[in-house]
């Protein structure tokens, strides 16, 4: 190998590394393993670190209208759980234009619409890793969906509405393996609502439907980073 070839050989990995760095989403969206409070949480985090970073990366590139904040992805325990149940949790803020039709819906109806649009596709992304889905330590899934409340800001600050959707693992797998439909999934999920910081308690959402929005919507002129494939 001559000198020029050696330089070229050295540059290829550097270029690839630079390409990956440009394309990578912020890694702090995934809760680090050392921040869990139990061995079970830490074990799950250590075993599936790659899968969670892949989930983060997929949301970042493939759902660019959605925002994932720091530590929004992790094996959290639902608050006040009586035992150390570990649910893979993903929290997303959904950015969308103001819509008078959406604003006229009741909170529960908006929650149902968001459930229909995002929960199925999110569950599929969360279970892309067969090892993660099959891990006996994993007890279920949490999807936290947040959007701008269709109302005037309070003290100059926008208000968000949020639903936290808890689905146990057998129910989720039944849906993912087409043994049940989205209506059944929505009827078995436990859904908590929040108006800004105010808890609304458990809310009754209507029957969900299959909404193909995330598979059909494209941000105008959006170009994926080289090497990124969205499925």
């Amino acid at each position, binding site marked *: 190998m001559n000198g020029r070839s050696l330089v070229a050989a050295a540059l290829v990995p550097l270029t690839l590394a630079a390409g990956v760095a440009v*394309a990578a989403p912020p890694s702090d969206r995934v809760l680090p393993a050392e921040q869990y*409070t139990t061995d079970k949480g830490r074990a799950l985090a250590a075993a599936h670190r790659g899968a969670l970073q892949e989930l983060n990366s997929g949301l970042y590139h493939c759902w660019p209208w959605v925002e994932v904040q720091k530590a929004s992805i992790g094996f959290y325990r639902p608050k006040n759980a009586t035992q150390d149940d570990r649910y893979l*949790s993903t929290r997303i803020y959904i950015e969308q234009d103001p*819509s008078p039709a959406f604003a*006229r819906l009741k909170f529960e109806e908006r929650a149902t619409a968001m459930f229909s649009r995002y929960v199925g596709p999110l569950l599929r992304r969360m279970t892309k890793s067969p090892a993660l889905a099959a891990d006996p330590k994993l007890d279920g899934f949490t999807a936290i969906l947040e959007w701008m409340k269709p109302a005037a800001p309070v003290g100059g600050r926008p208000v968000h509405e949020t639903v936290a959707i808890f689905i146990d693992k057998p129910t989720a797998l039944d849906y993912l393996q087409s043994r049940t439909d989205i209506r059944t999934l929505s009827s078995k999920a436990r859904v908590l609502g929040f108006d800004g910081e105010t808890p609304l308690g458990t809310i009754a959402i209507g029957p969900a439907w299959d909404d193909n929005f995330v598979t059909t919507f494209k941000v105008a002129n959006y*170009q994926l980073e080289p090497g990124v494939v969205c499925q």
Partner: protein
Amino acid sequence: MRSIRGRILLLSAVLLATAGCATSEEWTTWYEHRTHFASYDHMGFSVRNTEGSSPKVTRQDIALARDEGWWGKPITVSQEQILER
């Protein structure tokens, strides 16, 4: 002429009577509503950057537009109100 005025009045009355109800039509409207960015100007900024070529928006453009267009810290539930570590 009178007939046209009458029709307009009738149409207005029907529209007023049906306003304010979340009809299935409105569900459909929302269903068909396409999400994009509230601050179109920021997306326009990205597009202008590619003058002379076909417009392209990268993930970084979107992150930048979001940062620039941020409307302030939202009032929202904290992670700790829902989940435990």
